[in-house]
């Protein structure tokens, strides 16, 4: 706090009162952006001596945004593979289904792979979704090797000249190194046959600062290309998603916000950042 007080005195910032800055600080911290990043952000915003604090914050956050393409990559003429990864309970299976629905609406052919062979009935959960969307699912026996499921899926996708193969993987706590290695194996098995174009890390909006550790470990294990932030329909703002985007330069590609198949929207920076300040 002492650092903060000094800053208050050092920078008499525009017409924005100390109270207002403090209010913004509280909302940002409560959005799970993290204390350090919040303070850094506010200091930066203050140096611009703005008339409108929120606008200044918005402008600063926009500077953090990744320059990477936020759409799902597509190379015509071959199967494009998307791996969906994340810790338990973030909504991987639901996101996989929503993503398939979204891509199907773009007139692409889709094959799903249920490589979550660990959680009881995860395969059936994806199957139920797939039936609703009208896409096929490749799956193995319960507790089968997920890599073998991935292998069958990519083989089939190539044979059938499918545009997108979307692979749902088992949730795993990123601290379990052997499970992370298993995930790496899934990736390698597919890559032997066809490039993996996207590895999407699903982060639950209610996650706290642990989201940073999740990102770090998944990036190391399977080279994440983008994020999906889920459960934005609740009271959580998903600030840690923005922290991950800044820290690792990974674009948030989609935002999930409900239980309906269509509740997945491309990342909207304006809306997301405004949410952090609410």
């Amino acid at each position: 706090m002492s650092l903060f007080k000094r800053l208050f005195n050092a920078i008499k910032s525009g017409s924005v009162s100390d109270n207002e800055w403090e209010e913004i600080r509280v909302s940002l911290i409560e959005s799970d952006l993290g204390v350090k990043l919040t303070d850094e952000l506010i200091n930066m915003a203050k140096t611009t001596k703005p008339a409108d604090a929120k606008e200044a914050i918005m402008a600063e956050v926009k500077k953090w945004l990744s320059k990477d393409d936020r759409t799902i990559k597509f190379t015509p003429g071959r199967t494009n593979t998307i791996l969906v990864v994340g810790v338990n309970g973030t909504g991987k299976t639901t996101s996989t289904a929503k993503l398939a629905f979204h891509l199907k609406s773009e007139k692409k052919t889709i094959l799903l792979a249920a490589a979550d062979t660990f959680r009881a009935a995860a395969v059936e959960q994806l199957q139920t979704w797939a039936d609703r969307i009208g896409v096929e699912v490749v799956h193995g026996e319960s507790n089968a090797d997920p890599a073998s499921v991935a292998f069958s899926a990519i083989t089939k996708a190539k044979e059938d000249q499918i545009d997108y193969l979307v692979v749902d993987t088992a949730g795993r706590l990123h601290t379990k190194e052997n499970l992370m290695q298993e995930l790496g194996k899934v990736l390698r098995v597919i890559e032997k046959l066809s490039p993996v174009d996207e590895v999407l890390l699903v982060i639950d909006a209610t996650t706290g600062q642990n989201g940073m550790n999740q990102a770090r470990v998944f990036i190391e294990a399977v080279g994440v290309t983008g994020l999906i932030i889920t459960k934005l329909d609740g009271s959580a703002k998903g600030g840690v998603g923005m922290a991950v985007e800044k820290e690792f330069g990974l674009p948030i590609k989609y935002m999930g916000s409900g239980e309906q198949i269509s509740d997945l929207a491309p990342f909207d920076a304006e809306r997301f950042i405004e949410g952090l300040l609410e």
Partner: protein
Amino acid sequence: MFEALGQRFTSIFSGLRGKVSQARLDQFSEEIKTALIESDVALEVANRFSAQLAEKFNQNSDEINISINPAQKIYELVNSQLVQTLGGATRRLKYAKNPPTVILLTGLQGAGKTTLAGKLAKYLKNDGNTPLLVAADLQRPNAVNQLKVVGESAGIAVFAPEVGNGAGDPVAVAKAGIKYAVDKVHNFVIVDTAGRTGIDDLLMKQIIDVRDAITPDEIFFVVDAMTGQDAAKTAKAFSDGVGFDAVVLTKLDGDARGGAALSIVEMTGKPIIFASTGEKISDFTLFHPDRMASRILGKGDIASLAEQAKSAIPEQAAQKLEEKFAKGEDFTFEDFLSQLEAMKNMGSMSKLMGLLPGTAGMKKQIENFDESELVRTRAIIESMTPLERNNPKVLNGSRRARIARGSGRAVSEINALVDRFGQAQKMMKQMRGGSMPMPMAGLGSPPKIAQSNVKSKKKSRSGNPAKRAIEEGN
């Protein structure tokens, strides 16, 4: 969990030397506040915590000043504040006067309710109860199926009249479930419900209807330990909406900062009753605020370790070994094998090691302890003849080669095990005349961990007195 917080506490404590001024105490409360927020404790709760701590420091300032070891006194105050914020005394399950005891599970999507329902049922069953699982999550695709699979693998009855997937009335299912339990004389009913956000009025009303229809004896709020600032808000919404009696923390086995636990207890005044700590159905324990505080502050959880050891090692076996010991007989591979068996019953090594004090810095090694090492060791011993097991001295080259073939391991591994065993035997001889042998004594513990343990101890000895006090626990 709470490692980050624990490390912060350790570093804050180690900065305390000799006399502690009032200004330093104030700064200390501020540092703790920042550490709490960084660990996902809700802002409001962190503020309150540090204010209460500052108040405690004030009240005890005289004592802190005259104390020979102010750090120790401060440690005690922080510890008591932590225990208080974590809920004080251990909350135990309430039994209904007239069975069945009905437990309703609520929480956000993905908190782990269905998995937890299975674990809770198994826990109750192990205590001699006859739980029934009721599948009232008719929302999430195949939640009903998941519960069925979980129930089946744990040998628990599941009442699931609806297939779910968006169809069916959870209120009717819950009611019918209770009736079914009464008819079939189940003494516990666990009702799994759909996950919902705290601000979805429609789903909130649905769970209130379920609650009113079955009047549960216990309502549990299930929450992911990795939850951030939202934990306080959501818990409040559930508390005001459905109301709950206690909290169950899931996914405690990750590296979650765990601040959510503090936020929820403080914001709702409801205690944490259970914690789920892994993927196996048995990874589930009663939550003890005092033990958790001790872990956060880097003192480990010896009480839990002792409990697990006691329940895993049959009294007879322990006694037999003790007698053998007293008579001066040698510790043999046969004894070693029965100890390995007992350790298997205690749960995973990584979890056990996590309960030891001073292991905060070894998190990674512990997490990655290769459990299959024990399986391999077993295979080697089981490939020995009874003669070899009882007289390791007869193990010549050709015998070792045979054992290697039998167990599918390299001869060098057999040699290493026999060497380690020889050392363990020697150690046991030195210990003779002392107390009961430790269950872990025979195991050639992973050298890396053993070494760093020694190192950290040495360090704390030569370091400052405050840190030493904390680490040695005087």
